[in-house]
């Protein structure tokens, strides 16, 4: 009998693996102080920015790549990477209207399902589209400005709102934070800037779409979101890349600042190229530092991530809970299939009184993938009555994958309440058989089980993106069974 069990693998096609042929302004490979100066001058940055970059670069030179994560990859040659590549004649700030965006670029984003034409856009979502090193278009910019919401490429923010950038950049993730954050601080090229003024509820979802196109280039974007008192914003990030046999480095930094009574909801649907399903060759190395600071009282930062791409994922979105009664949340689905490796989780640092954090992590491994949850919960002495609830669930599909959980808990205040739950389960043949006996096909049965497993996280995603995430997981696991 031909067994139709969960051990059998077929290959799912990555449908965003195409490359756009476009003239690019690309600087030579390699990283020296000159490179840093070159990037800064290309972007006509204010002096303080160059200063920041140079300090970061010098510090980076003294640092070593971290080796503590449970991921394995050949050494990265930092001199063999292109640090700046931009499609020619495309600086978003210069466009009066979307019609002026290079049609090739517009087509690229259309193929990715991202329309830059405002009238065709998903209702209520503004998009900043980043292609390699630069932002190529930002929709709804003017409309948002009417209510005081600033949403633009960070290079444009440096021109228009240098004081705000200067005040907050590096305030959550200093360039000394870690190796990849230092690298990013030195060479970051673009990213999104969001500023929500006091007493403002951002009237639409904001989103940034990242696309790496040029072979051999790294993407080092930087996102900064500041939410003033009594404000709210929901922000979504999406990413894809073409299929290349070489690995591409993505080292981003995201900083969130929430002031009194404000709330930032940050969602990510990450679908980079994972590498060749059969050999594991190529794919994105994703080393990302994401952190939010709940500065004000009663502020709230919520991270939701669906990680399906990348050959290697190294990221720990976290919250520093400084304001009293502030809340940090982390909801994550990390899917690894084939040869993917993920070391991801969250870091919650409680400093203020009555601060609360929740970590819900769902790891799914299939193929020969390795999925690690690594999380830290720190309760500082000042954090009276802090509470944390952590739940890490792992789901294994097939016999060759693995899942690990590394929780670190450090409590310095006795009034803290900490709960940690972890579970590992397998999609069992019994579950599949049960559903199939009811006339449901193997693929649908698998989809139902996976979505059931991820439900706690998916319901945190904004409407349309929950649907997208559900489909994405289905696509990624296509052929995992049968």
């Amino acid at each position: 009998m031909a067994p139709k069990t969960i051990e059998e693998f077929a290959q799912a096609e990555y449908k965003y693996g195409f490359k756009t042929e476009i003239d690019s302004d690309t600087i030579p490979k390699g990283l020296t102080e000159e490179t840093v100066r070159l990037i800064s001058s290309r972007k006509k940055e204010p002096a303080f920015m160059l200063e920041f970059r140079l300090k970061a670069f010098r510090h980076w030179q003294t640092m070593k790549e971290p080796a503590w994560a449970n991921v394995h990859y050949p050494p990265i040659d930092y001199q063999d990477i292109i640090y700046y590549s931009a499609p020619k004649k495309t600086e978003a700030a210069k466009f009066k209207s979307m019609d002026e965006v290079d049609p090739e670029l517009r087509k690229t984003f259309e193929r990715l399902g991202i329309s830059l034409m405002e009238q065709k856009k998903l209702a209520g979502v503004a998009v900043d589209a980043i292609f390699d090193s630069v932002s190529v278009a930002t929709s709804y910019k003017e409309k948002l400005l009417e209510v005081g919401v600033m949403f633009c490429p960070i290079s444009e923010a440096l021109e228009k709102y240098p004081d705000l950038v200067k005040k907050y950049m590096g305030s959550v993730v200093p360039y000394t934070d870690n190796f990849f954050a230092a690298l990013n601080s030195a060479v970051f090229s673009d990213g999104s800037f969001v500023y929500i003024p006091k007493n403002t509820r951002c009237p639409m979802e904001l989103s940034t779409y990242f696309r790496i196109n040029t072979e051999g280039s790294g993407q080092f974007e930087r996102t900064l979101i500041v939410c003033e008192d009594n404000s709210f914003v929901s922000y979504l990030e999406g990413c894809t890349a073409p299929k290349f046999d070489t690995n591409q480095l993505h080292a981003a930094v995201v900083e969130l600042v929430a002031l009194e009574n404000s709330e930032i909801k940050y969602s990510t649907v990450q679908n980079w190229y994972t590498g060749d399903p059969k050999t594991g060759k190529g794919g994105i190395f994703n080393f990302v530092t994401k952190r939010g600071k709940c500065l004000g009282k009663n502020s709230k930062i919520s991270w939701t991530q669906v990680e399906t791409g990348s050959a290697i994922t190294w990221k720990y979105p976290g919250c520093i809970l400084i304001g009293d009664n502030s809340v940090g949340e982390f909801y994550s689905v990390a899917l690894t299939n084939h040869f993917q490796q993920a070391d991801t989780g969250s870091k919650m640092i409680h400093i203020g009184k009555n601060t609360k954090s929740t970590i819900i992590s769902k790891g799914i491994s299939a193929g020969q993938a390795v999925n690690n949850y690594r999380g830290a919960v720190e309760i500082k002495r000042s954090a009276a009555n802090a509470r944390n609830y952590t739940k890490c669930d792992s789901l294994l599909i097939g016999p060759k994958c693995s899942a690990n959980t590394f929780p670190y808990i450090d409590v310095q205040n006795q009034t803290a309440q900490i709960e940690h739950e972890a579970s590992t389960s397998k999609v069992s043949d019994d579950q599949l058989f049960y559903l199939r006996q009811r006339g449901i096909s193997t693929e649908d049965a698998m989809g139902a089980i996976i979505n059931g497993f991820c439900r706690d996280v998916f319901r945190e995603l904004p409407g349309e993106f929950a649907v997208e995430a559900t489909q994405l997981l289905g696509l990624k696991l296509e052929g995992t069974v049968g």
Partner: protein
Amino acid sequence: MLSIRNLHAGISGKKILKGFNLEVKAGEVHAIMGPNGSGKSTLARVLAGDENYEVTQGEVTFQGKNILKLEPEDRALLGIFLAFQYPVEIPGVNNGSFLRMAYNAKRRHMQKPEVDPLEFDEILREKLKIVEMSPDFINRSVNQGFSGGEKKRNEIMQMAVLDPTLGILDETDSGLDIDALRIVAEGVNRLKKPENAFLVITHYQRLLNHVVPDFVHILSDGKIVRSGKKELAVELEQKGYDLVAANVDGA
């Protein structure tokens, strides 16, 4: 409707069914009784297409079609339903949407339009009454945190929704209190039609007081050793398996 001839089957190299024969016609209820290890559950699993079981000999036809090569879902779509002895829990999968998935799979198979959640909700509420379950159970995860009785009632309820041609009940009565037993039995009785048939696999006679079989078969060591009418079940209850099985040899 169902014809099983000289069926030999087992699991992990162990032979369990050793020449099993059975004919089931539309409108009939057959009870298969036997001690533990006689092959009752193997029969149920083999009919449903569990790939862990290996069929080494014999044939099974359902409505004239050889089903042994068919996938479990294809057998299900032909109208074979197995009420499991130990229904599995599927965390996070909503009972209502699971049932709608199954229902729509069947609709597609019959080339009928699928039903939307609202239409299905009405169908479901009707069926819930059959097993006396409250509507809030629609929104719970499939079998998760269900009591033993609730799990079995859920099986019968699924059977009611899918309206199979052949319903196989694998020890559905085990572990049920008397009320749950009555609810399960009434559910089956209400689903009985001249066009369908039931195979009731049980260890005890008590379910058969409620679901009255047309035929009773005694299974021992992978074969039917005695067949009779419903009275055979009563005799079995009084004398025990050993004596009744021995009776065959003596007769």
